[in-house]
């Protein structure tokens, strides 16, 4: 009986008809595609996009130059250069983030003891030259200002 049923399904192309009903149904339901540049989707809060640097109370970049982000970065995208200051304090000479290497894993954010480096939800990172993909400390602070209005944010909670 089962075999007969299967044979009849094959002869009368029932399976194909069912498949075609499905495609017709899909055609009649509206497509879920968004027309990207025209209609932009709101970024999900907490999504890991472009990095930003927070300012500390004095208004300078909050980075203390500990180098933990550099150490934890799996793709070696961060380079921190520090030197010793006049009062044996640590000066951050340069903080560079190479977005061409970055995998946006967010480890640097987790590693930072003072929550100096953060991630914004910005995801449209295309640029016309390679140079534009290198983020220096100043540019990171600029991004931070754009997203946080220059205000120091409270410690990044995990």
């Amino acid at each position, binding site marked *: 009986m089962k075999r007969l049923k299967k044979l009849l399904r094959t002869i009368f192309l029932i399976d*194909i008809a069912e*498949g*075609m009903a*499905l*495609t*017709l149904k*899909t*055609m009649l*339901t509206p*497509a*879920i*595609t968004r*027309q990207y540049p025209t209609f932009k989707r709101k970024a999900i809060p907490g999504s890991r996009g472009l990095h930003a640097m927070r300012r500390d109370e004095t208004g300078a970049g909050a980075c203390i130059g500990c180098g933990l982000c550099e150490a934890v970065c799996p793709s070696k995208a961060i380079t921190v250069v520090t030197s010793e200051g006049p009062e044996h304090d640590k000066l951050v000479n340069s903080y560079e983030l190479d977005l061409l290497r970055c995998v946006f894993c967010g480890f640097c954010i987790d590693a930072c003891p003072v929550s100096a480096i953060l991630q914004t939800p910005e995801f449209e990172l295309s640029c016309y030259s390679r140079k534009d993909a290198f983020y220096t400390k100043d540019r990171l602070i600029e991004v931070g200002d754009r997203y946080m209005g220059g205000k120091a944010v409270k410690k990044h909670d995990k």
Partner: protein
Amino acid sequence: MPNMHQILNIVYTLIIPVLALLAFILANAMYLQLMERKVLAHMQGRLGPMRTGWHGILQPIADAVKFIMKEDIIPAKADKWVFSIAPIIMLVMAFGAFVALPFGPSTDFYGLLSKKVPLSVANLNVGVLYILALSSVGTYGVIMAGWASNNKYSLMGGFRSAAQMISYEIPMAFAIVTVVLMAGSLNLSDIVNAQTHRWFIVALPVGPVAFFLYLFSGIAETNRVPFDLPEAESELVAGYFTEYTGIRFGLFYMAEYLNMMVVSLLASIMFLGGWLPVQILPSTAIGHFAPIALINKALAALPSTLWLLAKLYFFIFFYMWLRATLPRYRYDQLMAISWKMLLPLSLGTLLVAAGMKQAGWL
């Protein structure tokens, strides 16, 4: 020296119909591609072309410009002449088939002309035979393209296409012969007129079977999914037109859509009553019931060419629908379907039809 009357006669009977047909064909060949992309996209939950004009309405023009601007590459080891001629053969054969296809009954364009003229460039009395012959010659274009490209994928595509087209031409021809038997004529207009009382698709018992056979082999003849082995992307890159670029590639594409149109038009003419209007159960009690009779009258009042085009686009939509649904057959399955299933079935259908005709039941 031909006089004015003769020249005008040539203009009316040849030049104007040919130009009208060309405009119709070219516009269709361009816009069917957009239609296919749109239908496929929506069936896959996408949108398709959206950015050239409103919902991509200018996409075919952009494509045409791109095809023409692209570099025309002839591979160094290709057979130059055969390579160049192949797409032209394909296209000419597709164009040629349209000449014999009637797009409506004889008409005087609502009194515009003094006498009724047939709505086809040439009202051939062997129209069916002519179209069958041209579609066979079209196969040569595919084989030549495959051979001349000097590329193993092209060659495989060409071989497959040759085998496939020859195999499926036989059941297709038998299905057509069945129709010719029922209509008693090889003239396409006469075939339509023979369906005035009953379309051949509902002419039991042979009509539906012949229709099924024709549809099946028609899809295979035009190398469409699920019989698109000659251009199977996953195995043969693009099959016989792998090496073609620019406008030559465009010609192959155009030929494919034109062949689709020819097969669809033939299917509408031979099985769905051509330009005859759709009627809800005519010549039954329900058909004579007043509101339904009114609807039937309204349907019959529409221009007959519109009905033919509606049927044509229905078939073309059906082709695209199949393409969005079905996977490709394996090569041995393809051959088995043709020789073990369709051929005996078509022979049987023909025999039954002949017997019934002889007995006067058809």
